[in-house]
């Protein structure tokens, strides 16, 4: 920066440093000509480089949701239990007894591809800050990961780095990582997805927001020092702006979970007092977005003295400080008179802390640096005038509905089942989740360890628990975004139901390709519309979320992947279920009708190497009917084990139950449906339940009375997994195949 600051000295008047804003610089900041015109209009002059940088990040896709905003607006976001929907750091729901659950999911895709360990670690750190910023103690972490095909040369490095990063951060901070999902597909070869979700617990009456209300209040900076990491890499080529090569840092941030842990404890301790007016973490776009969002929501101006910002490196410019994405930093507005209280707490926790500014009545963001004003812009346009694009989109053409009769039936069921149980999407992910501390905090009731449909985390000191799951089936979304969108929401609802929880609300992480392409935009719009229909049918609102676009390489977009994180409540831990409890002598009952849908199925892909066909339709009315019945059975203690029937169909579902319960099963086909459609069809709204003999008749007759399809499909016992006239494999052999796939891949 030496050059530009010496130049600026010569030309300084009111605003410094002065740097000519050329069309190239505007373009590098990702701003269109029209957007730049709005900036000129709102400022009444040319911006300087700092101001341009601030507009650029605030109006970036990441911060402004400019391609998706008008579509996100359609979502159901309110409900009886919603305390705070989208628009804050995270969503807040009411779970009774003055307890609030605060949760959100977020992507860290691009950084994780470039630097898997730090990218994933800082993804976890960032989502945790979103949650504790609002006054919640984080109590659970989840993740949804998509990698390229297993044999791709980068896959193993990415898997090991991402998993180590997630574990390295969450384990150290001491928040259990309780579940998630991992898929492998060639569609992610050039763009992996790392979506992290955090769930926190707060006092319903002590939720903290980001509106910096009131004038003349001190602004505190706390946490790690600001460095040059994470500056705006995508939009700013530093050579144009700065020819000092030393400053060309990797744009991936570096995480320090130790500082995060101290920040959590310090913030929660301060939140127990009445010192905080507003608080915001410095996430994407760091100091810029945190200060602008606080000022905008509070309807005030903010003046910051950048000389006071704790800095890790020397000679940092205002531009660098405002756009740095150094991790583990918080900004807060403190009540006047409470400064010492705040300082004492932060110093106890050995954190850097500084009073760096004040709220004002000007409505402007004013930055001072070395005695000069280096930025002076109105706050309102940064938020209000952010572009809200109506990008053209085309509906995804429908795929053919495939008839089971036209799909080859395997001549060797034993072989087909062995291949499916050890295929990348279904094989055990033990290698991954054994690297995560799942038990810290003493409240994990169920986690990945049981392979259960949803994780269960007790509310500390009580007898109730939250159930948490993340789901999406990208192959369905690719084939039909609308049905796929419905399906991902329905699957979370079903998984929460499987453990006996009342589903309450969701968060989402919408991962798509380049929205400037109408077909990608069509996927986004289709998925949102489908998700929204399911949310409305279940009265299951979206309370927070994140959009990640431009996940493509050389024009090859990822499959549309709207990951959904669902949260529900188990009111009393005397009544919950998992897939572990099937017992000798139990009868297996399938709730929900099987038609034998094989389009876009795992069978089609893994056994026949075909990825075509329309995905199974989701009948939301049936989903509700069947799910409510299963939940009722769980609460009436009618079931020993429950499992959602999804990927791989009945056979895979039953085998997963057998493996978790450590007992054999025998399946039969009581229908006229051909074997491959019966065992591997992926019809929706189905649950496999294991019940004791004396419950069979009541379960089936009550179902019939409610017009619910329920049929006996097998029995539990022995040490073999078998199907009438179809397959017969030992449980131990299946376990070995199921468990060995991932370790073998990682050790190869």
């Amino acid at each position, binding site marked *: 920066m030496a050059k530009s600051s010496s130049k600026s000295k010569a030309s300084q008047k009111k605003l410094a440093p002065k740097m000519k804003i050329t069309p190239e610089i505007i373009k590098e900041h990702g701003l269109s000509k029209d957007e730049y015109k709005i900036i000129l209009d709102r400022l009444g002059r040319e911006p300087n480089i700092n101001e341009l940088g601030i507009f650029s990040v605030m109006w970036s896709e990441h911060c402004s949701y400019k391609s998706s905003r008008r579509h996100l607006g359609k979502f159901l976001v309110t409900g009886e239990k919603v305390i705070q929907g989208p628009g804050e750091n995270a969503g807040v729901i009411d779970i009774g007894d003055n307890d609030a659950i605060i949760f959100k999911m977020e992507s860290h895709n691009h950084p994780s591809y470039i630097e898997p360990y730090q990218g994933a670690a800082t993804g976890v750190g960032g989502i945790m800050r979103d949650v504790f910023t609002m006054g919640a103690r984080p109590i659970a972490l989840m993740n949804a990961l998509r990698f390229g095909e297993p044999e791709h040369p980068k896959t193993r490095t990415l898997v090991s780095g991402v998993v*180590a990063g997630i*574990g*390295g951060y969450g*384990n*150290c*901070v*001491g928040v259990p990582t309780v579940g998630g999902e991992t898929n492998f597909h060639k569609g992610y070869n050039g763009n992996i997805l790392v979506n992290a979700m955090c769930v926190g617990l707060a006092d319903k009456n002590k939720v903290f927001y980001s509106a910096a209300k009131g004038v003349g209040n001190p602004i505190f900076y706390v946490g790690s020092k600001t460095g040059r990491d994470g500056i705006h890499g995508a939009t700013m080529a530093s050579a144009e702006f700065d020819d000092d090569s030393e400053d060309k840092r990797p744009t991936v941030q570096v995480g*320090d*979970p*130790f*500082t995060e*842990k*101290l920040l959590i404890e310090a913030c929660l301790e301060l939140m127990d007092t009445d010192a905080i007016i507003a608080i915001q973490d410095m996430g994407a776009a760091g100091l810029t977005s945190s200060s602008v969002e606080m000022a905008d929501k509070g309807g005030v101006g903010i003046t910051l003295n950048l000389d006071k910002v704790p800095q890790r490196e020397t000679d940092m410019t205002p531009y660098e400080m405002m756009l740095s994405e150094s991790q583990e930093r918080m900004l807060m507005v403190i009540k006047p008179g409470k400064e010492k209280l705040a300082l004492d707490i932060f110093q106890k*926790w*050995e954190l850097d802390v500084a009073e760096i500014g004040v709220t004002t009545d000007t409505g402007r963001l004013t930055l001072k640096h070395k005695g000069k004003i280096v930025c002076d812009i109105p706050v309102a346009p940064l938020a209000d005038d952010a572009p809200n694009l109506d990008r053209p989109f085309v509906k995804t053409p429908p795929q053919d509905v495939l008839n089971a009769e036209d799909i080859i039936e395997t001549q060797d069921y034993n072989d087909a089942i062995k291949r499916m149980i050890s295929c990348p999407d279904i094989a055990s992910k033990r290698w991954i*989740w*054994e*690297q*995560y*501390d*799942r*038990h*810290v*905090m*003493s*409240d*994990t*009731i169920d986690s990945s*360890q049981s392979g259960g449909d949803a994780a269960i985390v*007790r509310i500390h000191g009580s007898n109730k628990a939250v159930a948490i799951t993340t789901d999406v089936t990208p192959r369905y979304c690719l084939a039909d975004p609308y049905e796929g969108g419905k399906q991902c929401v329905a699957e979370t609802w079903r998984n929460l139901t499987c453990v006996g929880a009342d589903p309450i609300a969701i968060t989402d992480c919408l991962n798509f390709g380049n929205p400037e392409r109408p077909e990608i935009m069509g996927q986004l719009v289709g998925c949102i519309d489908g998700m929204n229909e399911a949310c409305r049918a279940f009265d299951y609102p979206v309370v927070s979320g994140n959009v990640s676009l431009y996940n493509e390489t050389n024009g090859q977009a990822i499959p549309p992947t709207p990951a959904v994180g669902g949260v529900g409540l188990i009111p009393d*831990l005397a009544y919950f279920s998992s897939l572990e409890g099937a017992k000798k002598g139990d009868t297996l009952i399938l709730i929900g009708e099987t038609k034998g849908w094989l389009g876009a199925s795992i069978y089609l892909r893994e056994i026949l190497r075909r990825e075509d066909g329309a995905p199974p339709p989701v009948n939301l009315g049936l989903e509700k009917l069947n799910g409510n019945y299963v939940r009722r059975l769980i609460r009436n203690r009618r079931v020993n084990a429950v499992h959602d029937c999804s990927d791989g169909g009945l056979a895979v579902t039953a085998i997963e139950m057998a493996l978790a319960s450590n007992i054999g099963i025998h399946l039969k086909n009581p229908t006229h449906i051909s074997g491959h459609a019966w065992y591997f069809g992926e019809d929706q709204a189905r649950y496999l339940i294991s019940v004791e003999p004396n419950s069979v008749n009541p379960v089936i007759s009550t179902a019939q009375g409610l017009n619910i399809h329920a049929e006996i499909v097998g029995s539990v016992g022995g040490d073999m997994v078998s199907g009438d006239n179809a397959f017969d494999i030992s449980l131990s052999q299946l376990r070995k195949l199921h468990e060995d796939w991932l370790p073998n891949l990682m050790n190869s």
Partner: protein
Amino acid sequence: MRTAVIVFPASNCDRDAAFALEKITGIAPEMVWHRETSLPKNIDFVVLPGGFSYGDYLRSGAIAARSPIVKDIVEKAGKGLAVAGFCNGFQILTEAGLLPGALMRNKGLKYVCRPQKLRITNKTSRFTKQYGAREEVIFPIAHHDGNYFADDTTLNMLEKEGRVVFKYTGNPNGSARDIAGICNREGNVFGMMPHPERAVDALHGGTDGIDLFKSILGTL
């Protein structure tokens, strides 16, 4: 009966330890900040909890072992105070010199979290008496640096003096002679990598840890 849990920056099983102690004694333990220079009065049993004190920077437990409170604990342990360290607490005890040996990075180089079978190799210790004739327990493990190391002379001494209290069945981390937990010669200081404090609740990690706490608390 008064118990205490020491809280270092980035301890994270302090809550787990407090949960277990309160569940078993009926009284919440004193939570003692690492900068205190002495324990509260009349403390009978101290737990150094698991976690990542000081972010595991330098070496796991190395910085925490130099905390003011640890100095006091070393002194009082010398006079017979009962002290247990679990996971990071065990690492701190070895770094503080209260127990011999060191905990190195796991042999597989990865963090490992799983329910772990252990053999009780000293059934008469102050930390295991309550188990009676029981041979085996399952405690959760969750660590990256749990590979116990000491020279052969020390290992021989530990075994000869009955100070190896628990051994792994199916060594998860490469520990010398499968050692999972040891005590000092006097038997009042005990450390182990597994987490008995996470095994006191049937819904959570099982109940095999309860007798460990009952054992030591019963001797006080």
